[in-house]
């Protein structure tokens, strides 16, 4: 155990340390400077471990960079065990980069009570890095909650319209989801009989002694509802558009982009491998709900939105439907697609939230009817928005394509009808995405926007806003053109290749 050089621990500890320093009363000038470091360190660590992952020594189940720290509850199988495998690595990188972008965007945002804002964002960042680096299920949940709590507070203090109501609704919904999944995790812990929350031990124990069919079905149901609420599975989605609509942009970027993936990640990393029979039992109902509810119904609702931020919020609910469809398909191809989609969607939705707020600063409204013609005044902003829209539709060249395509293939083997539904969804998402781009940037100026523009002439996107956006676009394009950089690791983790084979490459 090499404490000072453990990159994963550093990625959690660095933002947390900065947050503590701010809480202890660092002056604002220094707080901002240190916050840069607090957001940059996890991003650099993420890139570093991604670079070294392929050649790193792997242990059982393809985990690398494993370290274990005791917290005093070893007898109950609770301890801080950090490590990454092919499934968690992409999400770890996602958390690092989106966190960096959100942090940069927050620092330039001139929010009121800046120090508290940065403090909460740093805590959230630490929680996110920890969530995806944890091999111990207890700490997986623990870090998730650590990242979740600041979201509520940030919505409540810095939120927009209806912030108080939105914060309350998010809190109650997400607590319900978290509690249900906690009971599900406890159920696995107790029923396995391994007295350990360590995912690797749980996997080994269940591989030799799988749970009974009824037990598996029940526990998977609990986890599905719990995680499903956290990922806005229809009909438990109503917190998402409301919350994202009200959330300050950096919080929305981190929550919609990264934290929400916790539920899907939990299903993929914990529920599917540990409870294969339960997953098979639930897959049909899940597929129908996700396909008809999330993709089709919410897709149509998204089309009807006039508020730009609400539209992005609804579109994120809709895209989660594809992820659920991929999980329901129950094949390695589908699951791999889900991981890719989670990463791609994380980058693209964060980008969209960032750009929406940037647009708002120029139009002073989120109503798309009161915009138009912004492209002439802000061509770079327009270009970025169109790129983000293309990415979110899933055009080739962007990462999202490599997420949706495998899911569709996997789904075809599962159900032809639902594949058609999903494809219809793509058309729907193209319609609302392109229509939004057209309404905001092209076409004639609306009267309302002309008035605003006369008082406060809109400038193009500033460098301080450009930099975080470029980070996100670069990531989307990078994965879009070189999907193998992540998909190799994902495949190996999903196929369960023997450790020795992986290590020798």
């Amino acid at each position, binding site marked *: 155990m090499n404490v000072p050089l453990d990159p994963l621990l550093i990625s959690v500890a660095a933002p947390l340390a900065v947050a503590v320093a701010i809480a202890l009363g660092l002056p604002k000038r220094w707080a901002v400077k240190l916050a840069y470091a607090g957001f940059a360190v996890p991003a650099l660590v993420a890139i570093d471990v991604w670079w070294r992952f392929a050649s790193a020594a792997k242990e059982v189940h393809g985990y690398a960079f494993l370290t274990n720290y005791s917290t005093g*509850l070893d007898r109950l199988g609770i301890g801080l065990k950090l490590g990454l495998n092919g499934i968690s690595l992409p999400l770890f990188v996602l958390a690092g980069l989106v966190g960096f972008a959100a942090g940069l965007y927050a620092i330039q945002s001139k929010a009121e009570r800046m120090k508290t804002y940065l403090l909460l964002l740093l805590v959230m960042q630490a929680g996110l890095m920890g969530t995806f680096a944890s091999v111990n299920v*207890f700490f997986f949940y623990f870090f998730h909650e*650590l990242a979740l709590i600041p979201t509520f507070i940030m919505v409540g203090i810095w939120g927009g319209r209806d912030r108080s109501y939105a914060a309350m609704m998010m809190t109650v919904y997400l607590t319900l989801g978290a509690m249900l999944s906690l009971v599900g995790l406890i159920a696995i812990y*107790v029923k396995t009989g391994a007295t350990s929350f360590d995912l690797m031990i749980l996997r080994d124990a269940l591989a030799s002694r799988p749970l009974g069919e009824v037990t598996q079905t029940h526990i998977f149901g609990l986890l599905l509802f719990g995680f499903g609420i956290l990922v806005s599975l229809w009909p438990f989605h109503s917190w998402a558009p409301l919350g994202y609509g009200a959330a300050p942009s950096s919080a929305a970027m981190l929550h919609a982009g990264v934290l929400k993936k916790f539920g899907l990640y939990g299903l993929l990393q914990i529920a599917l491998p540990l409870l294969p029979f339960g997953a098979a039992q639930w897959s049909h109902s899940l597929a129908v709900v996700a396909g008809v509810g999330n993709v089709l119904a919410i897709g149509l609702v998204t089309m009807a939105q006039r508020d730009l931020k609400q539209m992005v919020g609804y579109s994120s609910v809709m895209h989660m439907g594809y992820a659920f469809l991929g999980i329901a398909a129950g094949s390695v191809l589908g699951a791999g697609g889900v991981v890719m989609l989670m990463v791609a969607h994380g980058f693209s939705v964060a980008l969209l939230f960032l750009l929406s707020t940037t647009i708002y600063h120029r139009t002073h409204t989120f109503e798309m009817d009161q915009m138009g013609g912004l492209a002439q005044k802000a061509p770079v902003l327009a270009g970025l928005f169109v790129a983000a829209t293309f990415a979110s539709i899933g055009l080739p060249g962007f990462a999202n394509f490599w997420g949706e395509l495998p899911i569709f293939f996997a789904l075809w083997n599962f159900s032809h009808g639902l594949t058609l539904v999903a494809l219809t969804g793509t058309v729907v998402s193209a319609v609302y995405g392109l229509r939004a781009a057209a309404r905001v940037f092209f076409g004639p100026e609306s009267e309302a926007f002309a008035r605003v523009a006369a008082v406060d002439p809109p400038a193009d996107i500033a460098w301080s806003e450009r930099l975080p956006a470029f980070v996100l676009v670069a990531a989307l394009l990078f994965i879009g053109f070189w999907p193998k950089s992540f998909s190799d690791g994902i495949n190996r983790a999903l196929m369960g290749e023997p450790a020795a084979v992986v290590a020798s490459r």
Partner: protein
Amino acid sequence: MDFSTLRSLAAGNAWGSVWPELSLGCLALFLLVLETGLPRSMHARIPVVSIAGQLGILGVLLLNFDTPYRATFNGLLMLSPQGQLMRVFFLISSILVSLLARRSLPWQRVPRVEFHHIVLVVAAAMMLLVESRNFVMLFVALETVTVGLYILVSYYRSNPKTLEAGLKYLVMGALSSALLLFGIVLLYGVAGSPALSGRTLEAMQYGGLRGFLEANPDNFLAAAGIVLVLSGVAFKIGAFPFQIWIPDVYQGAPTPVTAFLAVASKAAGFIVLLVLVTEVFAPYDWLVGPVLTLMAAATILFGNLAALKQNNVKRLIGLSGVSHAGFILLAVVSVSREPMAVGAVYFYLYAYLIASFAVFGVMTVLAGPDDSEQELGDYAGLARESPFLAGVLACGLGSLAGIPPFAGFMAKLLVFVIAFKAGHFGLLGVAVAGVVVSVYYYFGWIRTAYFSDEAAISPKTAERARAGAGLTLGIALAALTLGSIVLGFYQGPLGNWLAGH
């Protein structure tokens, strides 16, 4: 008692084994001596003497934590690691109550030294209560606690709400004592019946009664006695349907006393219950199990639902305390199938202590002179006026709500794991629903403190928040908050100790 008896007792060192209780008693008397002996101008220092003395006792107690564990005083008392843990618990509680009282009492026109005196006596009696292994000892210690609390609850005697609270607590306390005593008498009587096998004259002793109950596992009178004893204890912990006194009494009592009632008195009740369930009533698990199960479910539901619509924060915290009693009962219910539940109860109590006193500390500071009129609206804008107090409040409430990274989360997690292991799935469902509901009102409180508009700040709140907690109480509150966070993710040796028992 002649001299030789005393000498034999001294030889067995029985008195030495209760030195913390004795020193608390002596300290209490010393305070009264100081009051008569010192000039009036020095009286303000007497609470400091009390707190310093308690800190000294706590220090010595922690250094001598591993004393020989055995029964003393002919089996009246039992020294155990759990007992030591509770001694520490009650000492921390009484120190914090003294700290709060030092802040709260000067606002009222009441004598101050007696208050500190009674707090010490009550703390000592609580220690004896959880160590007792004999029903007579149990009852005497319980009455000492209760009589002390009668006085404390009605201490701000110029306030009609406080007097009402005092009267209600007196009536309800008397009723619960009567139930308990009736139960004890029934058990003693039936155990001495010559017609039954295993009859014993030692039925006041826990061990003796246990032997009798084992020999007669389905006696009706014994069952009635057990139910009555459980009801008496249920009053103390505020479990449904004996929770009716809680909102009024908590609201009317001085805030430091409310804290004492909510934490120490409740904890004492739970340890008594735990000892009774594990050591005495175990043969009647067929009866105790269902009764406590129903009680736990109803307590969780009632506490949380009733707290939802409260606007007075003292009533709110009282009713949320009822729901916490339900969660602890969940662990007590599981103890017959899962011995680890004992550790979970202790951990929960400590987490509850740390979080509750943080909240009560903020309440005391903000209440000022009008102690029984603390409305939720008074907290509007607290975060703007005093980020420190608001932070302490938020962490305390977060821990009570059971949110990581606070200790309250670990406590709830342990209880849930144990309830699952014991197979109480229905109760677990109720508990999960309770947690979700509780988040609503805890978060509502935090929301008022943090998210209110500037216009909503009342001048009273602003003034008191700016005055702050003062140095001593401020340090205590910071320590409680820190403890709550650290215990949430690093349990250290305590964790292994709890998991082992």
